[in-house]
């Protein structure tokens, strides 16, 4: 029985020859049901037969099909997925067919934990041979919803356990072309840079990543993810931020284009706190008075601009300002 019940007329289980020998077991909510609910008759019947099959622990092809019917009606029911796995193991079910089963279900249930876990379990059984299939599967899901958390987690697992690193950056570049603001893609990029055996880690990739990131910022300056990624590249050596001409340049350039760019102002604040001394030209460019301002006074002005430009977070910027008194200029 396929899970695609829309096209076929559903035949009640009690009218099916193959189930004649089974006595369905009704829901037992206990003597004083807290939640006595009336089920639709189809749901009730399928569940009654499922309970019967579980009670006798029947591991058979018809049991497998029945779990499919339960899942089609209620994919969130985690117990039926458990039993399906037990059945598959016992009857040594066709795992390729099982992949198809998941494929059919996944598109309409892309945020369902049980489906993803089942897929993982299947992939673990099938091993390295399914690497391409898994990458393709997640790519399909991501083409519908580029931020699907389960898809990205699964993809990370595939890369780590089965491989496929070589093409991942290219995939991510395509995804960013579709949506440069997709935070999941930026996270995945960091994941690849720091884990791929082909890349050699953050230190090795820093220069090329810096260029990539700054280009993205220039393309879309209001991109929270790109600015955070920029900061992330220096996570192990924050003091190096202020020694990076690229970082300073992109920050000043973007601020010159948009004097109240919160991201750029925030970065400038960080740079100033780490000892950056803007030139008189830069100050003019950014509409800051260039004469006689100490770095602390300049940082203070940046905070005050932020308190207005990002007024929702005025308390945060006020706190940043309060730190300036304590820091050495």
């Amino acid at each position: 029985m396929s899970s695609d019940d829309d096209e076929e007329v559903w035949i009640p289980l009690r009218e099916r020859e193959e189930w004649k020998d089974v006595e369905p077991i009704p829901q037992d909510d206990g003597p004083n049901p807290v939640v006595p609910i009336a089920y639709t008759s189809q749901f009730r019947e399928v569940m009654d037969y499922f309970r019967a099959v579980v009670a006798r622990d029947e591991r058979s092809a018809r049991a497998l099909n029945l779990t499919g019917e339960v899942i089609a009606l209620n994919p969130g029911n985690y117990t039926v997925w458990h039993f399906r796995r037990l059945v598959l193991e016992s009857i040594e079910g066709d795992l390729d067919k099982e992949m198809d089963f998941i494929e059919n279900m996944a598109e309409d249930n892309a945020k369902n934990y049980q489906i993803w876990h089942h897929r993982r379990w299947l992939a673990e059984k099938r091993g390295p041979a399914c690497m391409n299939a898994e990458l393709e599967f997640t790519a399909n899901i991501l083409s519908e919803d580029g931020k699907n958390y389960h898809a990205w987690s699964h993809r990370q697992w595939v890369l780590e356990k089965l491989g496929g690193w070589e093409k991942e950056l290219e995939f991510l570049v395509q995804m960013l072309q579709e949506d440069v603001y997709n935070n999941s893609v930026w996270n995945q990029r960091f994941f690849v840079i720091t884990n791929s055996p082909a890349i050699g880690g953050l230190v090795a990739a820093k220069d090329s990543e810096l260029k990539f990131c700054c280009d993205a910022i220039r393309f879309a300056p209001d991109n929270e993810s790109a600015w955070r990624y920029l900061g992330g590249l220096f996570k192990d050596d924050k003091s190096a931020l202020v020694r990076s001409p690229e970082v300073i340049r992109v920050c000043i350039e973007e601020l010159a284009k948009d004097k109240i760019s919160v991201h750029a102002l925030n970065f400038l604040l960080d740079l100033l706190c780490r000892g950056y001394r803007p030139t008189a030209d830069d100050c003019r460019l950014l509409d800051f008075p260039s004469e006689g301002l100490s770095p602390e006074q300049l940082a203070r002005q940046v905070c005050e601009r932020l308190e207005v430009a990002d007024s929702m977070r005025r308390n945060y910027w006020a706190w940043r300002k309060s730190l300036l008194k304590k820091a050495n200029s």
Partner: protein
Amino acid sequence: MELRVDKHVEFIKSLEKKKDFDSMVMEHLRMNGAYWGLTALDLMECREDVDDAKVISWLLQCKHDCGGFSGNIGHDPHILYTLSAVQILAIYDRMELLDSDKVASYIASLQQEDGSFAGDQWGEIDTRFSYIALCCLSLLKRLDVINVEKAVDYIASCKNFDGGFGSIPGGESHAGQIFCCVSALAIAGALHHIDKDLLGWWLCERQVKSGGLNGRPEKQPDVCYSWWVLSSLVTLDRVDWIDKEKLKTFILDCQDTEEGGISDRPNDAVDVFHTFFGVAGLSLLDYPGLKRIDAVYALPVDVVKRIFG
């Protein structure tokens, strides 16, 4: 706009009598639903409106020999429902009904070599389960049955370049996962692993123009993040970094003032999950008339005080 406690209480109580398909397909997570509903009622000081004895008798039927609890009668045990069961009994002050050693050993059995926790025998790993394990064992005063240090190490390994945490090492920072990791580290006395300024800033950046909170950059606001983000900020002692008034307004706008209940965002369908998290968020914002909720244990403060003294 005010919180229509009367309407929301009626909504939650009506869920017990619901006879529709939606309640049917949620029956496997009834234990979670009961925790959301009862805790919300308790925060609104209306818990007595539900028959305790019926809930407890049903709950105990979800207990399995292994020590874990299932989402409903006839389902398999899972760490998710085990926590909800313990939390419900904590609210009722009936934890003596638990075989604490059994529950503790069930949870201990789910800890992996690397310190992470599986959800059940099928092995799904997620930092959500790390929080659940630490929270549950802490409530049972049985943290000694697991390797807390390794649990902490695993959570720390899930810390990202932006200061946040994901479901697994390398997983994207997400407010729900952040709540789990921050709270777990708080329970373990290991908050020093967190860059509070960096994460606090990431968290306060979740607030969007409407005043609502999202869970990740460039995503839509959702009332449930009023809990995940806000409670994390409370634990990190940086809750003033968001605009509380605007958030309060957003949550109140998510109410269905006719039928009761709260939805994920204004004018969407309501459900008990968002009703709980909306009320919990308002409690953290000190909304008048609501009991205070503990940001780490997600239980009323008086319950937590009773357990820990």
